[in-house]
């Protein structure tokens, strides 16, 4: 089910590939081919480094169909170092308290599964960056 819908997004889901506007140099994620800032064509690919900080977060207890097995899970809006914001689950939190401004980095994890014989959908989540000792 929905195989092509997920396959099309593999570069974004697995490696945060977006775009850079050749006119205003704005970094764009998700890619959209037209710069949202200046309106010009922007098809040059750009690799985000996967680091950012938490803009906001919440915990979802009542999960929508397809996500029940992960509930409860923590969602965040992450402001990437290069500018754009991305919505993602947080992972590898253990007992760590989440707060606005906390530095995080992208990792690849299972987003959802569609039953025993269905697709396993992988993509980005974000985890806390460990402080250097």
């Amino acid at each position, binding site marked *: 089910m929905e195989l092509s819908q997920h396959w099309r997004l593999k570069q974004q889901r697995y490696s945060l590939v977006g775009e850079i506007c050749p006119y205003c140099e704005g970094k764009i994620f998700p890619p959209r081919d037209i710069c949202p800032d200046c309106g010009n064509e922007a098809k040059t690919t750009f690799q985000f480094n996967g680091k950012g900080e938490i803009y906001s977060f*919440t915990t979802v207890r009542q999960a*929508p169909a397809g996500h029940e097995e992960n509930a409860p*899970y923590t*969602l965040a809006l992450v402001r990437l170092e290069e500018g754009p914001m991305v919505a993602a689950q947080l992972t590898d939190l253990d007992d760590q308290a989440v707060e606005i401004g906390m530095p995080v980095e992208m990792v690849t994890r299972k987003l959802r599964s569609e039953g025993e014989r269905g697709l396993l959908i992988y993509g980005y989540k974000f985890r806390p960056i460990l402080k250097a000792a």
Partner: protein
Amino acid sequence: MSKKMNSTREIIILGVGMTPLGEHWDLSIRELALEAISAARAEAPQVRPEAFYVANMLAPALSRQSQLGALLADFVGLRGIEAMTVEAAGASGGAALRQAYLALKSGMIQSVLVVGAEKVTDRVGSEVDAALATMTDTDYEAIQGITPTAQAALLMRRYLHEYHAPQDALAGFSLNAHANGASNPLAMFQKAIRPEQYSKAPMVSDPINMFDASPIVDGAAAILLACRDTIPANHDHPLVKIAASAMSSTAVALHDQPDPLVISSAVSSVQKAFEQAKLSLEDIDLFELHDSFSIMAALSLEAAGFASKGEGWKLAADGAIALDGKIPICTFGGSKARGEAGGATGVMQVVEVVRQLQALAGKNQVSNAKIGMAQCLGGIGATAVTHILTHFKDH
């Protein structure tokens, strides 16, 4: 020449109707629509509408039913009429009314029937949440497990953080909605709540608690509109005119908003509405805004200009939003207490403004209400539709 004629072509509301909100196990979407439509048409039985627009967002996902335009037209006795569904998530109701307004302004149609109808409770729990999540960005939000509730929670946490607002800053919105719902016989919840109930309420998606989130339930509302020339000679209900109708959009995803705490579509549609009506903030006697979550009410007040950025919550805390306050909102309980009915909500808001301007609001009456504004939002404000209504005296 024709442009000039159209611009002065006045659009009048001849009849309105609305069902109670709630879990209507015994009623289908057809029967809910029929009840609201019958009530609206009974106020102007001489007028047979020439077009029929249905506001709905959830029927394809929850009832496996599309083409509601034709389906409901046939069911309510209007077989043959020009009919379609208008979908813009939670802004569907306002969007359908906007299409009716444009059709009438065009001069090609003389009368339009608009109905907003939702049937939610045939499904429960995670299936409803998944259907609601289709109004987010499926590829980049819903795949991560985001729901509209989670979007609102992300906004509310950032709001409280950025503006250093207290944890219960938004309580006033819920208290006001429930106070007004208590005297609305159509409301899902007809009981006022106390501040302690708000502060002790369980979390749904922190910091959104049970009293920050509206219940999504079944209901329908209908409006019969016509051009001024079509008003029946013996029409005996107070007439209300649509003084402005304006719609704007922005990105669907929260992460694509330049500033998530500013609903740019709402800012723009309110500005356009004020320009059309040649009115300003001070002229508005009441404002039926989008309160699916209390944070959306605060952001809507700020977007419209009733409060500056980060100050919207203070209008609730100060009582300025009460029936006798400076800018009454959710005068019949809003989505929080009246009940939230997805694509139908925008039609319900306008029905409520009409009742206020007709001085038929009973215990919920805003005294001396002459000019009312209604605004519905799709999702976190990807779509915003604003209508301004005023009294109309036929000469």
